[in-house]
C-alpha cells in the first residue's frame, strides 16, 4: 500500500470530522443564546404570584415602576386560557387524529386514504396565520364574537396532522405478526385495532400527542383572530380568553408591561422544553 495515499485519506477524514463538529456547534449556538437570554432576563420575575395573579393594568404597572418596585401581577389569565383551549383541543383532536391515522396505516393503497394523507401533509405546511383567519370566518363571525371555542378550533386544526402522522407511523412499524395473530383468533379488524394494535402503539402515539401540544402551545397568530385575549382570569368558553403567547405580544405593545415579557417567555420555553424531554424519554423507553 502507498503510505502517502493512506495519509491523504486519513487527512480528508479528519478534515470532514472537524467540519461536521464546527457546523454542529454553530447550529447549537443560537439555541443556547436564546435559552440564556430568556433565562437571564426572566428568572427573577418568576414567583408564586406570577402564576396566580392576572395581568396588572398599565396604570398599576406604571405606579410600581415609578416607585421602583417590580411590576405586580402575573400571567395567570394566560396560563388558564392556554390550558382551557389546549384541553378542549386535545379532547377533540386526539380521537379524530388517532382514528384517521389508523385508517391511513391500515389502507395504504386506498385512493381515498392516499388523498387524505396528501391533504394531511398540506395542512401541516399551512401557515398558522391562515388557519387563524379561516377559523375567524368559520367560527368567530357566526358566533358573533371571539371565544375560547374558536381558539381551540384553530389549535385542533394545527394539531391534527401531527397526531395523524405519528399514529400512522407508529402503527406501520408494529410487527405484522401482531395484527395477524389478533385476526387469526377471530377478531374483526376494529377489535384487533382497539385491543391489540393501538395499545401496542400507545407509546409512540402519546409521544406524538405531546409533541403536537408543544408545537401549538406557542402559537400566537391563530389565537389573535380567534381568542383575542382578556386581561382577567376567566373560565367561560364562549367569551374572549387570554393565552400565554398572546400575553407576550400584549406586553410587547405596552411600554409599562414590557418587563413581563421575559417571565412569560421563560415559562413558555420551560413548558415546551419539559414536554419535549418527556416525549423523548417516553419514545426511548417505549422503543426498548
Amino acid at each position, binding site marked *: 500500500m502507498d503510505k502517502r495515499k493512506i495519509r491523504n485519506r486519513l487527512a480528508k477524514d479528519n478534515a470532514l470530522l472537524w467540519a461536521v463538529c464546527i457546523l454542529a456547534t454553530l447550529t447549537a449556538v443560537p439555541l443556547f443564546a436564546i435559552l440564556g437570554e430568556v433565562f437571564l432576563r426572566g428568572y427573577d420575575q418568576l414567583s408564586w404570584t406570577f402564576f396566580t395573579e392576572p395581568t396588572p393594568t398599565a396604570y398599576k404597572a406604571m405606579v410600581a415602576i415609578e416607585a421602583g418596585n417590580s411590576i405586580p401581577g402575573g400571567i395567570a389569565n394566560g396560563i388558564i386560557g392556554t390550558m382551557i383551549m389546549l384541553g378542549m383541543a386535545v379532547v377533540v383532536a386526539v380521537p379524530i387524529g388517532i382514528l384517521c391515522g389508523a385508517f391511513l396505516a391500515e389502507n395504504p393503497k386506498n385512493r381515498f386514504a392516499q388523498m387524505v394523507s396528501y391533504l394531511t401533509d398540506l395542512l401541516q405546511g399551512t401557515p398558522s396565520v391562515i388557519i387563524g383567519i379561516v377559523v375567524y370566518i368559520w367560527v368567530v363571525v357566526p358566533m358573533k364574537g371571539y371565544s375560547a371555542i374558536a381558539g381551540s378550533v384553530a389549535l385542533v386544526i394545527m394539531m391534527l396532522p401531527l397526531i395523524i402522522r405519528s399514529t400512522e407511523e407508529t402503527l406501520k412499524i408494529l410487527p405484522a405478526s401482531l395484527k395477524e*395473530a389478533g385476526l387469526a383468533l*377471530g377478531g374483526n379488524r376494529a377489535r384487533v385495532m382497539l*385491543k*391489540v394494535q393501538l395499545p401496542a402503539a400507545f407509546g409512540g402515539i402519546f409521544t406524538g400527542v405531546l409533541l403536537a401540544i408543544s408545537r401549538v402551545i406557542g402559537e400566537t397568530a391563530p389565537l389573535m383572530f380567534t381568542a383575542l385575549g382578556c386581561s382577567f382570569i376567566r373560565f367561560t368558553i364562549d367569551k374572549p380568553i387570554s393565552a400565554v403567547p398572546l400575553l407576550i405580544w400584549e406586553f410587547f405593545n405596552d411600554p409599562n408591561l414590557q418587563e413581563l415579557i421575559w417571565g412569560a417567555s421563560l415559562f413558555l420555553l420551560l413548558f415546551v422544553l419539559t414536554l419535549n424531554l418527556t416525549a423523548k424519554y417516553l419514545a426511548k423507553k417505549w422503543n426498548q
Partner: protein
Amino acid sequence: MESVTPPILEFNKTCVSYTKQTMAVKYVSAAIDKNTITAIMGPSGCGKSTLLRAVNLMHNLYPNIRVDGEILLNGENILSMEPIDVRRRVGMVFQRPAPFPTMSIYDNVLSGYVLNGIRLSKTEKDETVERCLKSVALWDEVNDVLNKKGTFLSGGQQQRLCIARALAMKPDVLLMDEPTSALDPIATAHIEELMQELQNEVTILIVTHNMGQAMRISSKSMFMYLGELVEYGDTATMFSNPSDERTKAYLTGKMG
C-alpha cells in the same frame, strides 16, 4: 382401506397465487383425518406456509392474493365462509412467538374471547386460563405470575402461551407455521411433546423445515416442491420408502 369417519379438513384442487402469472400453490388435493398431526415439508419457497395460511383465510388480508379451488372444513367450503367464523374454528401459531405485548399472561390466554366480543364470568375466565395453561404445561411455571406481561416469559414459554391462546377458543384445527424454528432444542422438545398430547383434542397441521421433527411427531406428511404437492402419505412410509424421486432427493439432503 377407506377411513370410516369423514376427513375434518380437505384440500380440493387448492391454488394460491400472489400475482396473475405465478402460482405459489398449485392444485393441492389432500384429506386430513381428525385428531392427527400432519407435517408439511419442503424447501424454502415451496408454498408450505402459503398453503397453511389459506386454511384460516389469512390471505384475505392481502387483496392481491387469490385462492382458488376448495378447502373443506367438516364438509363446508372455507373459501365461501366468513373469515371471522373460520378463524374461530381454525387456530394458528406463528413462527415467532407473538404474545400481545400489552396484555398480561392471563389476558393473553383470554384474548380470543375479548377479540370476539364474548364476555365470560370471572369463574369461567379463571377456569379457561387454568385449563389452557395446563394443557400447554405452562400452568406450574406461571400460575403465580399471571399478571405479568406475556413478553416477560422466555421464548419457549411465549410460544406455549400462544398455543394456549389458540386452544382457548376450542378450535377444530390448529395450524402451526414452523412453531419451533425460533426456539432452542429444549424448548423445541417441550413443544413437540405437547403436540403429541394435544392431538387428542385438536387436529394439527404443522409446517416444518426440520425433517427430524416431522418424523418424530407426525403420522402423515406432505412433501411440497415448487408449489406442488409431490407426495402425501404415512410419515413412516415416506421416510423409509418415498415414492417420488424429488421426495427422496430432499429427504436424503441432495436437494433443499
